[in-house]
């Protein structure tokens, strides 16, 4: 009888040890985490499984391993190709997949939606096919961390949008690019008398194009000016303060420059947009330079920014 009790105690102890040991092994091997991932869908951000519809005689395809770059940088004045790939599985075999139905929708809520077809690049097994998709993202498209990816494929049974994959993990960040192009790089005046006033530059306007997706708002286009010094007789200047910069083709308004001081150009802004529209405002700004007057005590000679350094056009 005592022997039976001892065996019973040993059995209970061994059972408990196995229970504890199993728990530890289960935990340390991350098996529990894997199990939890499968339950909650909190696995890798760039892959996942899709809904599975069941129909007698047919297995609907599923989509997984959606792969993409989590951060995409805009390409200055051009588009960037975003590549996304995914794998589709059909338990009836890939022959049952409608390859031509594979497509991608990339969208930013409230902003833009882009749709593109995908191509079958290779077959992993007789049941799994690999697809590659690409979408062009233009330089002026909005920066954000909420660009959503939706890939889908149907099978030949023609069930609509079977295997559509769309969840919060399938999103990427489109970076913010602050970029510009401006011309000309040198402003000139044709003929100036010392008594002349309000002389607009013959190089006007200086055209600035926004070649990125950063909205340059009012107050964020600035100029740092320097005095123009005589090249033959140093120490004589056409002062920076004699110049104005305006968004309109006129003098006496706009912003009076000041030597060595960075000043906002009044009313200047550079919205993001497709500047190739070339309407003067979409992704564009025009600056007009005016020489308001000249000191009458300076010599006739060449005056330039060579000594003082170039003016600096700043956007932020």
């Amino acid at each position, binding site marked *: 009888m005592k022997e039976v009790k001892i065996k019973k105690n040993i059995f209970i*102890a061994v059972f408990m040890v196995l229970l504890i040991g199993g728990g530890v092994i289960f935990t340390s091997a991350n098996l529990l985490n894997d199990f939890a991932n499968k339950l909650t869908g909190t696995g890798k951000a760039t892959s996942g499984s899709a809904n599975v519809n069941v129909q007698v005689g047919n297995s609907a395809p599923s989509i997984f391993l959606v792969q993409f770059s989590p951060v995409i940088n805009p*390409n200055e004045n051009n588009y960037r190709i975003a590549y996304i790939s995914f794998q589709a599985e059909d338990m009836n075999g890939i022959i049952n997949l409608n390859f031509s139905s594979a497509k991608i929708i990339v969208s930013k809520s409230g902003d833009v939606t882009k749709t593109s077809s995908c191509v079958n690049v290779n077959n992993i097994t007789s049941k799994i096919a690999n697809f590659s998709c690409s979408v062009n993202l233009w330089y002026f498209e909005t920066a954000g961390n909420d660009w959503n990816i939706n890939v889908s494929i149907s099978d030949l049974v023609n069930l609509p949008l079977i295997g559509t994959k769309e969840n919060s993990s399938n999103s990427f960040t489109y970076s913010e690019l602050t970029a510009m*192009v401006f011309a000309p790089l040198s402003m000139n005046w044709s003929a100036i008398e010392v008594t002349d006033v309000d002389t607009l530059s013959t190089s006007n306007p200086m055209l600035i194009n926004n070649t990125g997706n950063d909205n340059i708002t009012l107050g964020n286009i600035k100029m740092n000016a320097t005095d123009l010094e005589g090249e033959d007789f140093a120490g004589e200047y056409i002062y920076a303060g004699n110049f104005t910069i305006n968004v309109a083709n006129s003098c006496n308004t706009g912003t009076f420059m000041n030597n060595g001081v960075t000043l906002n150009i009044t009313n200047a802004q550079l919205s993001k947009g497709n500047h190739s529209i070339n309407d003067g405002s979409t992704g564009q700004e025009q600056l007009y330079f005016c020489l308001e007057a000249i000191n009458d005590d300076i010599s006739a000679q060449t005056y330039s920014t060579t000594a003082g350094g170039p003016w*600096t056009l700043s956007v932020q």
Partner: protein
Amino acid sequence: MDIVCAIKMNKNYLIMLVGLVFAFTIVSAFGISSSYFEGNPLVLGPGESKDVSLALQNNIGDKDLSFTASVSDGDSGIAKIINKKDKYKVPFGTENTAIDLRVSIPNTALIGTEYSVSVNLNQVRDTEGGMLEVSGNIMKTFPVLVGEVVEAETGKNTLLIIVILISILAIILIIGYLIFRKKK
């Protein structure tokens, strides 16, 4: 580029003639991108540090460009350029020249504090002899937000803690059971 100035006296007025003779460079174009921006701040906890790269692009025109770079953070001292160069040369057609920043949040920073980090990118231009030459500058600013240090594995850790607690409870039960049996 060159300028010609001529002078002539005419009724006691000084006349200056300024004309453009030749232009070397047509446009100035460049850009800088950041994966952190308004609406997508860099979030770090107190005492945390992160290296951030800002990429320079030179895809327009046909010239290699040079820049000086500096950082400003409103005197908070949280950001500095690492491996700083006197000049950043950006060959034409490239976009992988990086300005690397290290952003470090003080241990004493309060949750919710928002900093602003700006990188000032100043184009270095050789003078070309124009009357009024203009170079370009871009100031790229991104927000840094002090937040809780988020444990990405929080949910999983909770499960682990539950398993450990169950294991400890089981051990206690075994010991208790054995003691009870022994006394009996």
